[in-house]
C-alpha cells in the first residue's frame, strides 16, 4: 500500500492553515482539527508592507 494511503487509514490530527472553511468541514465530520489563526502580513495592504520593509531594510 502506498504510504499516503497508510496515513489516511490512521486517526488523523489536522492543523489547518488557510481558509477557515476547510477547518469547519473537517470539524463537521468529527475529525480532530485545529485552525491556525493566520492572516497575510499587514492584511495584504501593499502600502503598509512597503513601509514595514523600508524600516527593516539596512542602510
Amino acid at each position, binding site marked *: 500500500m502506498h504510504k499516503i494511503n497508510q496515513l489516511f487509514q490512521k486517526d488523523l490530527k489536522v492543523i489547518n492553515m488557510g481558509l477557515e472553511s476547510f477547518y469547519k468541514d473537517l470539524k463537521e465530520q468529527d475529525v480532530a482539527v485545529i485552525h491556525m489563526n493566520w*492572516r497575510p*502580513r*499587514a*492584511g495584504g*495592504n501593499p*502600502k*503598509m508592507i512597503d*513601509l*514595514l520593509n*523600508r*524600516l*527593516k*531594510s*539596512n*542602510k
Partner: protein
Amino acid sequence: MQELIRKANQQAMENLQKARPTLMGIGVALKDIPNMDKKTILHAGPPIKWENMSGPLKGAVIGGLIYEGLASNEEEATKLAASGEIKFDSCHHHQTVGPMAGVVTASMPVWIIQNKAFDNYAYCTLNEGLGKVLRYGAFSEEVITRLKWMENTLAPVLKAAVKLRGPIDLKSMIAQVVQMGDEGHNRNKAGTSLFIREIAPYVVLTDFSNEAKSEVLKFMHSNDHFFLNLTMPAAKSTMDPVGNIPHSTLIYTMARNGTEFGIRVSGLGDQWFSAPAEIIDGLFFPGYTKEDANPDIGDSVITETSGIGGFAMATAPAIVQFVGGTPQDAINFTTSMYEITEQENDAYKMPTMNFRGTPTGIELQKVIETQILPIINTGIAHKDAGVGQVGAGLVRPPMKCFEDALEAFVTQMAKEGLLE
C-alpha cells in the same frame, strides 16, 4: 534601522517597567495641574473644538460651566462654550487623565500621583460613581450637587486621611488587584475594597464629623469604580516617561474624545494620530440599545496602554458578565495582546495565566504586521448630553491611527537620513 528602533524601544520599556506610581495626596485642579486657569476646561482624548464635540462631552462641558458658576443653566453654558471665551484642551497636555468625557474644571479636586522613578506627576479627578454623572455627560441638579459634595466633603476628608497615612504605593496595590480579579479598567471592585482597607483607619482619625466620615466611607463602598481614577493617573504617570524617546515605535498614549480616537508614538513626540472613534460592542442597560450609544470616549484607555485593562482581561473572568463574552474569550483576548506588545509586565502577574506578566508596551510595527488591534474594556455613554451611562463592552481603536503613525514614522526616519 531595526537596531536603532530596538535600542530605543528597550529604553522605553525600561522606563515603563521601572515606574513607581505613588499616591501623594489630593489637590485642586487650578492650583496643581500645570497651565490650568479658571476659563480652561480639560477633556478626554485628542484636542477637539466645541462644535465637533459629541453629546456626552458637550453635556459634561455644560455641567462643568454650571458647577464653576460660570453659567446658571444649559442655555447660558452652551452660549458661553461656543463664544470662544473658554479654552478647551486635552487632559493629556496637562499631565492629566479623565474617564469618559474627562472634563476637569478649575475647582475640581484631583488625585496627585508621583512616579517616584522619574519624579513626574499625573492628576485625575475623583470618581463620581455610575449612572447620571458628569463624566457621562449628565448635568442635572443631582450631578452638580454631588460634585459640590465631592469638593466640600469627600476630597477634604480623603486629603486629610492620605496625609495621615502617608504616600501609598500604587504599583504594589495594582499588582495585588490584578491577582484579585480586577483588570483595572472596567473592573475595580478589588481595588476599591483594598483602597478602603488602606484608608479607612486614617479616615476615622481625621477631625471631621462622624457623619462626614461615614458618608465618605459609604460613598466609596457604593462605587465599584472608585479605584479607576487611581489606576488611570498611575498609568499616565507610568507612560509619560515612555514618550519622546527618539526612534521608539512604542505607543505611549491612546485616548478618545467621543468623536475621535487618538494615539501618540514615542519617537514622534506630541503628535496625535486620530480617526473617527468606533461604536462599542457590548451589553446595554435595560431600555437601551446600540442606537443610543455614543462612539468610544475617555482617557481610561491609558490603562490598556500601560498593560492592564483589556490586556489583563484573563485575570478578570467576572468582567465578561459586564461586557459580554465568556471567560475563555477573556483569556484569548489577553493571549492575543502578547502578539503586539514588547514585554510581559514585571509587576502585574495573572494567576489564570500561570502568573505570566500582563502584555505590556504596544509596538507600532507589530500592530500593522499582525493587524491585531489593542482590545479595550470600556463603558458606553448615551449619545445625547445629559443621559449618562447606558452599557459597557469591548472596542478597538481604528486601524487608521496606526497606519498614519507608521507612515509618519517612516517619513521622519527618512528626513533624518536613516532610510533610503
